[in-house]
């Protein structure tokens, strides 16, 4: 019962955070100078014309009225329509952009880890040999390369010179999985290359730490080969610290994805958000920011709940308090 009560309290806290976040987002985007009416009319607007258009678009209504309407819609996943272009509904637009960014970030991280694990472990095990040092040095170089720069070079070599792969654009997985993969090879590679360098540094030092542990020495003493002991006992322990790093790096990867989306003309969340901010297309801006903030809050809440349910130490500590 006590657990349920605490989860209830957490849920109430979550609801309050979600509400405050939505209010802050709405207030901040509305405080931006410049507005959609001026953008739509451009440098041909007559004095007063923008005010009339603002009235027509319903932007002159009281703040609270507009906020309540917006937040009410958001609860039903209705974020209104864009003020620009095709006046597309915001929810499906954001969903389509989300697919691009999620494909990019998830694949980027996946390939980064797949590459970083063997390279990092190799660099650790062979750290006193030339090849291990070279692997380590290469990852150091990779760290210094910005992802967008790698992207530009990949385009020049593989899209423009060799013409093996498209230089940019995106095709939905559901339309054509083959085209989807081709369009993602270069952007994922440019994200993964740099991420792999970062992660392989962590893997290397984690593996080195493991080889200094007592249990590793014991395993060696009972006759395991070094690589055998590493596979059997080492990797699991490396995995724990690796997961923490991956969690932290995911945020970096999201930021990197915004720039990569520009380089490869991918219409993901990042480039859509940038363009919407530049044009003051507030319904789109608010929907994307709200989506990001609410996901973070929701994930934190779920992790909290999971701790309450799973970890007896957290439970006992809470009961004692």
């Amino acid at each position, binding site marked *: 019962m006590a657990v349920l009560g605490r989860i209830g309290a957490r849920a109430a806290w979550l609801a309050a955070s979600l509400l405050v976040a939505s209010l802050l987002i709405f207030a901040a985007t509305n405080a*931006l*100078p*410049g*507005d959609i009416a*001026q*953008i*739509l*009319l*451009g*440098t*041909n*607007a*007559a*004095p007063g*014309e*923008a005010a009339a258009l603002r009235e027509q678009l319903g932007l002159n209504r009281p703040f609270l009225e507009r906020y309540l309407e917006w937040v009410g819609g958001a609860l039903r996943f209705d974020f209104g329509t*864009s003020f*620009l*272009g*095709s*006046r*597309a509904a915001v929810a499906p*637009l954001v969903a389509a952009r989300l697919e691009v960014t999620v494909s990019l970030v998830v694949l980027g991280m996946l*390939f980064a880890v*797949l590459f970083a694990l*063997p390279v990092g472990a190799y660099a650790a095990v062979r750290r006193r040999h030339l090849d291990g040092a070279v692997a380590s040095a290469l990852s150091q170089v990779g760290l210094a390369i910005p992802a967008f720069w790698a992207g*530009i070079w990949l*385009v*020049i070599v593989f*899209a*423009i010179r060799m*013409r*093996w*792969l*498209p*230089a*940019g*654009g995106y095709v939905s997985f559901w339309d054509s999985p*083959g085209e989807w*993969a*081709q369009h993602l*090879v270069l952007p994922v590679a440019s994200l993964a290359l740099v991420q792999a360098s970062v992660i392989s540094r962590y893997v290397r030092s984690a593996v080195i730490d493991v080889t200094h542990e007592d249990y590793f020495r014991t395993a060696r003493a009972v006759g395991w080969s070094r690589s*055998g002991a590493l*596979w059997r006992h080492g990797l699991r322990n490396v995995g724990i610290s690796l997961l923490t790093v991956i969690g932290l790096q995911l945020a970096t990867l999201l930021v990197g994805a915004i720039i990569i989306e*520009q*380089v*490869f*003309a991918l*219409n993901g969340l990042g*480039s*859509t958000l*940038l*363009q919407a901010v*530049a*044009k*003051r297309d507030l319904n789109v801006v608010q929907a994307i920011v709200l989506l990001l903030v609410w996901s973070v809050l929701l994930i934190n809440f779920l992790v909290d709940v999971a701790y309450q349910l799973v970890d007896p130490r957290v439970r006992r500590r809470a009961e004692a308090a």
Partner: protein
Amino acid sequence: MRTARRWVGLLLTLALALTVAACTRPMDPEVGDARVLNIGDTLEPEGLDMITVSGAGTAYVLLYNVYETLLKLDSEGETKPLLAQGWTRSDDLLTYTFTLDPKAKFASGAPVSADAVVASFERARSEKATNQIRSAWAPVDTITATDAKTVVVTLSRPSHQWLYELTGPAGIITDPAYTGDFSKESAGSGPYQFSSWDQGNLVQLKANGAYWGTPARFDEVNFRYYADANAMNAALLSGQLDLITNLTLPQTITQFADTSRFSVHEGVTNGEVVLGFNHENEALSKLEVRQAINHAIDRKALVKATWAGKGELIGSMVPPTDPWFEDLSNTYPFDQAKAKQLLKDAGYEDGLTLRLRVPALAYGPSIGRFLVAQLAEVGITLELDTLQFADWLDFVYTKRDYDMTIVAHVEPRDLRAFALDDYYWNYHNAEFQRLMAEGDVGTDEEQIAKLKQAARLLADDAAADWLFLLPNITVASAKISGVQNNRVSLAFDLTTLASRD
């Protein structure tokens, strides 16, 4: 060790899958026999209805391609018949009679009748239209259909400008039978129809199979929008695009030097890059100061440094394709000594500080930095401030909180912007306004003479510094023919383009 083998196996499979995916890419973007034209551009339309939405992006895609006008502009700026076979003007310049082409019909199959023209024109001068469109129609008194193919328009005062506006968004003819939403679908008489819009990415046109004139040469035309000009160039270099309508990074022109693969077309636009003065600023209200700034800027060096040497010097608000163009670029030759003397005469021998607030567009920041360095040499300190375009519209355009700014004015025949009573330059010149008004109501010869005089007056008054005229640099794949050099109307006219394969 079994785990190890599984890992290696997984890695190899993934690598193989990627390689196979990479190598099976069809190099030709065209599917089957469909003739597809892929165009790269940076300015996405603001909407689909040119009457209710301002902004150059919309007309660029739709004008002449989807919506037709009675008269159109060709690439030299000449007025040519389109939906009208011909027109006559009464001797008092007040009555225009248009005879419609009997073949003309809308995509729906309905004929382009005199009634359709009247309905379209009435919509353009109604409350629904933007201020800009309505003001184009201000001189018009009555619009009547005298028979099925004849439209008579009477004016309350003569106006050359009105006839010219008929070639643009203010003169588009829409299908009166269409009752839907013009911002979602198209209902025109052009060789193409609007097909779909993936916002932020792509506007798609499809051929109008029932077109009344020369049939469309492409089944599908994709206008693809790029936030990053380098990404757009890469798409053309790799074969994803057939054509880039306007190179916004002229420095990259050398990438397309291979004439077996690309053709590069250079021409003029209507885009005057204006260093605008806020005439309410105390220093800038003095003629000597404005002239000093004009003398202090080496415009030739500026174009070389910031726009790869492309772009004509004009010296006033008139592009070379307008009939009243005169080369006024030598009104204020580069002369720093003279600039310093003029500043001294105006009482600023100890220096002058001005705020230069530029929009963060392709030309703004780079020209801004050039000017900071160059004006410092004559004792003018510029505080450079780069604003997002939305902020620029708010602070500079609407609130007029600036001393100098830089904007490319791309509208055709925008000399008259300096005659507006309440525009962001705060420029008021009764003599100039009189010349513009007299030019509009006069005979054809009078119009040219008065507007020449007006343009000269602006230059003599140093009402602004016309830095240069934006060039039109189109790059196309070598298989595309019929690319027009100049960009004198608001349209990107697809009707001249064809593919050689």
